[in-house]
Every structure is written in C-alpha cells, then in structure tokens.
C-alpha cells in the first residue's frame, strides 16, 4: 500500500468502516511512514474536534408539543376506530333482524298471517270493505316492526349514541336485504300484494328501528 492508497482510506479508517485486511494494510503503512502518520493524526484531531461543536439545546416545550400532538392523534384514531365498530354493530343488527324476520315468516307464512289478519279485522265494520292488499300491508308492518324493535332495543343499549341515525341505517339495510327473499317467497302472489307487503315491511322496519334504537339508547331496557 502506498501513501495515496493509505490516505484514501482515512475516512473509512476513522469511521470504522475498513475491512480487517484493509485495516491491517493501513496500519502497517502508517507505522512505517512518517508523513502518513502525521496526516492521520491531523485527521484524528479534526474527527475528535467535531464532537466539540456546540449544539444549542432543544426547547423543552417541544417535548410537550410533540407528545401532546401524538396523544391527540391516538385519541382521534380511537374515535375513528370506535365509529367503525359502531357501524359494524349496526350492520350486524340489520342481519340479525333479517334472520328474525325470515324466521317469523317460516313459522308463520305471509299468506297464513294475511288470512288470519283479514278474517279478524273484517269482523269490524271499518275494515269490511278494505281491499286484500291493505291486509298484506298490515302483515308487512308486523314482519318489519317486530325484528327491528328486538334488535333495536339491544343494539341501542349497546351503542348508546346517535340512535336515530343508527336506527334508520339498520332499517334501510334490513329492508334492502330482505327484499329478494320477499320477492322469491311471494312470486306466486299478485304484484300488488307483494308491493303492499314490502311497503308494510319498510314502514314497520323504520318505525321499529327508530323506536327500538331510541328506547335502547335511553335505557328503557334493564341492564343485563
């Protein structure tokens, strides 16, 4: 190794980035070369002097500002996260309501409920002349109202906040999800009957969802 080679390695030598073989070569050369020894000593002094450069101290309020900002952002993230959990809860409530409503319709089919409803109500004077589709509408209210009241009372109690928004969302989701089932099950019925049934389901779901979520959020249901 000559002087040029040795001096080109000084930066790597000072920072400890030389491979063992190169390190031995540099040290071997420097040990036998006075100019390079002096050169290395001068660089070493400068390397050491870098640590003596004054560094203005950090304003202590910066610590508080950064940590407070991070704390605020963590809090914000948690809020977002809990909002996401709430909306998942609303979605789950809608699914449970669909399951309950379908369960209802399997235990008590729409047509059976219609026959019972029309027979019972037509015993009273005001309902005698009502068309059949009206009774499908009433039946629909029952199939929409009951499941939404049940899930609304429970979900509203758990979610606590914004019951009217959550209740509306759950009701709309329920109506959209159950629509294909109603169409399939009522495929043999006249279109007007299916439409009346669906209208009743939507009205019942909205009433049940809003009322159920609101009552649940206001703790009308005892804690369990």
């Amino acid at each position: 190794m000559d002087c040029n080679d040795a001096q080109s390695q000084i930066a790597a030598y000072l920072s400890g980035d030389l491979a063992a073989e190169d390190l031995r070569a540099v040290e071997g050369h420097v040990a036998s070369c006075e100019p390079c020894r002096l050169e290395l000593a001068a660089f070493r002094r400068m390397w050491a002097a870098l640590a003596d450069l004054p560094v203005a101290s950090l304003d202590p309020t910066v610590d508080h500002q950064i940590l407070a900002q991070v704390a605020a952002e963590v809090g914000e993230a948690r809020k977002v996260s809990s909002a996401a959990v709430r909306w998942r809860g609303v979605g789950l409530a809608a699914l449970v309501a669909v399951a309950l409503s379908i369960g209802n319709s399997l235990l008590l089919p729409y047509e059976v409920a219609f026959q019972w409803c029309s027979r019972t109500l037509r015993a009273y004077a005001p309902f005698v002349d009502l068309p059949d589709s009206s009774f499908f509408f009433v039946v629909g209210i029952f199939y929409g109202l009951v499941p939404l009241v049940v899930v609304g009372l429970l979900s509203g109690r758990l979610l606590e906040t914004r019951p009217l928004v959550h209740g509306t969302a759950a009701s709309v989701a329920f109506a959209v999800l159950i629509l294909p089932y109603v169409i399939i099950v009522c495929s043999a019925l006249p279109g007007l009957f299916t439409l009346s049934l669906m209208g009743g389901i939507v009205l019942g779901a909205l009433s049940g969802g809003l009322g159920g979520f609101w009552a649940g959020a206001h703790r009308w249901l005892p804690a369990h």
Partner: protein
Amino acid sequence: MSQASDQELMLAVKAGDRAAFEALYRRYRDRLHAFLVRYTGDPATAQDFFQETFLRVFRDRARYEPRAPFATWLFTIARNLYLDHLKGARRRTEVLAGSPTALAGISDTRPGPLQETEASEWRRRLEAALAELPEGDRAILLLSRFEGLRYAELAGILGTSEGAVKVRAHRALQALRRGFLA
C-alpha cells in the same frame, strides 16, 4: 419498556402504543436534535425539522418495516424532510453556501472575537467548513461520525451504493480539512 429494543418499541408504536413512542422519543431525542443542528446549521430550522420528523415517524408508523434499524429509518425521514424543504423553499443556495445567518443560532452563544480562545476559533472554522459541504456529504460525515452508521446503512439512506458513500466520505473529510485549515 426501557429495555425493549428499538424494533420492539417501533412495532408497539405501529400497534398504536403511545408509551412506546414516548420511550423511542426519549431515546433518540438528543441524537436527532444534535444531528439536525449540525446538518442544517441553524437551531431554529433544526427544531422545526425535529418536530416534523418525530410526528412523521408516528404518522407513518404503519410503513415501518423492522428489517432496517430504526435509527436508519429515523435519519432517512429527517433528511428527506429537509431535502423537500430545500427544494420547495429554494433555500438550497443560502444554506449550502453556509451564509452567516445559517449559523447565527450557534454563533450567538460564543464570546466576541476579542475573547475568542484558540479552541473556539477552531470550532468556528469547523462549523463553517461543515456548512460548506454539499448536503449529502455533510449527512454522510455527521451520521458516520456521531451515529456510527456504517457505509452500507448510509447507502440505504442516500439511495446510492456503498462504494459511492465511501468516495463521498473521503471527499467530505478532505473538504472539511481544507476548510478547517483555511
């Protein structure tokens, strides 16, 4: 918490652990600040980038990959933020030229010319020589000298090869000495 490695702490930060962030902050606070003061040559600028760097660490926590040392990631963020600032604010010329104002924050704390000792004269020359280095060379020199980062790690930070870092480190040291002796 204080016994946990940087990687363990950063993975906890990634999971939203604020206490882990604070532990990492305390661990790197002085090192990053000292680097930024020497690197930018201006305490006020250094403080701004110090804040921005730590907030970026927190906001970009999801991007952290434990394959690279945390220190490498931290100093890469700090340097990139400063480079963006230089590009955006067209301050490159002023800062890299080592204008008198760039070192004003440090100079203010020193005694006047008549009271200057030989040691403080050395420091003044060294500061000026450091400020005149090209930005990348200055980063290499400071991170190598004070953070003990290896050339391979510096290559990752600067997005270049290890060989290129070695050449630039040599060039920076030579330039620093020339400025120091001037």
